[in-house]
């Protein structure tokens, strides 16, 4: 598997304040399903922003297929890499189809109207996310699960090779969480879409990701397969909380069990 995206010793943060991410090196291989985890404020979202051209690294560089992304045309970059945020609040009542067609902007010239090809790409993306029936609805009338499927469809309409997601399921119930992650798994396996996802839920990461990066205070604490990263030693050190790591009886992947504070005290 060749390297698709590479972060080479990057540091960066917001404006000229102290760097949030410090000396992070990371390789994303083609076909990866990479999870990024870490406590609040450990720099997960900042790392994604640095890797997607939203923030420019103060030090180091990010390359996509060997090219420095700061030297790439922004549209060229967004034809390769798409992004799904945690939640999208849209103040204007765009139709679902219009939102998904915006995913075609990187492929269009200024003032160029969408062609049949773009409409087809939008419909394909909507059917992949099981949201085609929402096509003519207004985006601000959808439930959060439906809205997130539409936003993912918009990202897929970009026809990217690499998809970044920043906690895409944190506002969804478990049913919708699994639905979205199953969809990502399917895209990863069938369409060879490379996925980099920030997730809060350690068990979802364990279940779906092939490789995990654990961030702590802006640096990589460790990285590897779920069973290498999700050990109680690593989790307790980074999250400062007591856990027991079992195995999921069905997938045999690590399964993190929380231990509430009271119980720890009583045991003492």
């Amino acid at each position, binding site marked *: 598997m060749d390297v698709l995206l590479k972060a080479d010793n990057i540091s960066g943060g917001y404006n000229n304040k102290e760097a949030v991410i410090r000396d992070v090196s990371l390789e994303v291989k083609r076909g990866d399903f990479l999870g990024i985890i870490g406590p609040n404020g450990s720099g997960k979202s900042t790392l994604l922003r640095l890797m997607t051209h939203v923030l420019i690294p103060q030090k180091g560089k990010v390359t996509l297929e060997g090219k420095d992304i700061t030297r790439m045309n922004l549209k060229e970059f*967004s034809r390769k890499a798409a*992004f799904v*945020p945690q939640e*999208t609040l*849209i103040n204007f*009542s765009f139709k679902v189809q*219009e939102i998904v067609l*915006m995913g075609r*902007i990187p492929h269009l010239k*200024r003032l160029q109207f969408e062609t049949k090809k773009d409409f087809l790409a939008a419909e394909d993306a909507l059917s992949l996310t099981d949201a085609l029936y929402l096509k003519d609805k207004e985006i601000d009338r959808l439930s959060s699960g439906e809205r997130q499927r539409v936003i993912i469809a918009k990202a897929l309409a970009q026809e990217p090779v690499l998809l970044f997601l920043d906690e895409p399921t944190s506002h969804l119930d478990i049913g919708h969480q699994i639905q979205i992650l199953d969809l990502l798994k399917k895209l990863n396996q069938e369409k060879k879409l490379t996925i980099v996802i920030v997730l809060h839920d350690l068990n979802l990461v364990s279940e779906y990701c092939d490789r995990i990066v654990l961030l702590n205070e802006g640096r990589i604490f460790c990285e590897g397969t779920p069973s290498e990263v999700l050990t109680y030693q690593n989790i307790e050190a980074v999250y400062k909380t007591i856990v027991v790591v079992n195995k999921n009886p069905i997938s045999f992947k690590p399964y993190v069990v929380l231990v509430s504070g009271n119980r720890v005290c009583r045991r003492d």
Partner: protein
Amino acid sequence: MTSSLRIKILVLFIMLAFAVVLGITKGSVNIPLLELFLAENRQILYLRLLRIFLAIIAGSGLAVSGIALQGILRNPLAEPYLLGTSSGAGLGAVIAIIMGVGSFYLPAAAFTGAILSIILVYAIAKQGNRIPAQSLILSGAIVSIVLSGIIVFFISMSTNEALHGFMWWLWGSLEVYDVRLLFMVSIVVLSGIAAIYVFSQDLNAMSIGEEEAIHLGIKTETTKKILFFITSLITASLVSISGIIGFVGLIIPHIMRFIVGPNHKVLIPCSCLAAATFMVLCDTISRTAFSPLEIPIGVITAVIGAPIFVILLKRSQGVK
């Protein structure tokens, strides 16, 4: 283009045509449409057509500037009048007149005033690196009041006799007093509208979020700067010929979003038609309601616009 959209656009055209007919036939004297073309009425027809032309230019320019600002600020309440840009332009123009600058340079002076007022409004509204929408509206209102006050001061202190009659700097008038200036202003405004239309795709992307737009390959910082520049240019040109006219850039885009949707490729042309119609009607009211007296057009747009602004403000607070 869907057939329902075609019908809506057709209706907008018919309404504009109706407004234009109303505008040329009504006035201090009412003249039936056919008699207007008689030789003795040629002068009246010419004057009224000029006025209607200015109404169309001013309406479209104000509405499209409003749309552009609303898109880049992601706030349906943004508008050149409420952000103080219009007052800045007005002050610039009034100072230029007092200093005896020719009308040819009036738009340039207005533009300088507009840019300076934008910088001032932003400096006041800025909290760290963020500009919260509510504080932007507030600082816009403050700057607008102060600058209008200074305009009144200059007008009342001025020995320039002509300026004393120029109440319309504050409340607007579509009376054309300089055809050359009208010509110049229309070129600036029409090319400004065309330039903003070129950005309709970028505006679509930015109205769903600034970071979203970056991920779609839009250079948001550059786009914002260009659009601020163009809207200031349009506002300044319009103020230098017709004074400060408020709320048009707020209510027309809002109503049109409701009717044709928020897609800027459709919204911009439809808003031009609707705003043109609205301005022609408001101007007709301003000329005829208390004839032979003429009420400033800004009074009419404010009376109609302010209640709609309140409704919008309430609704946007409800969302948060």
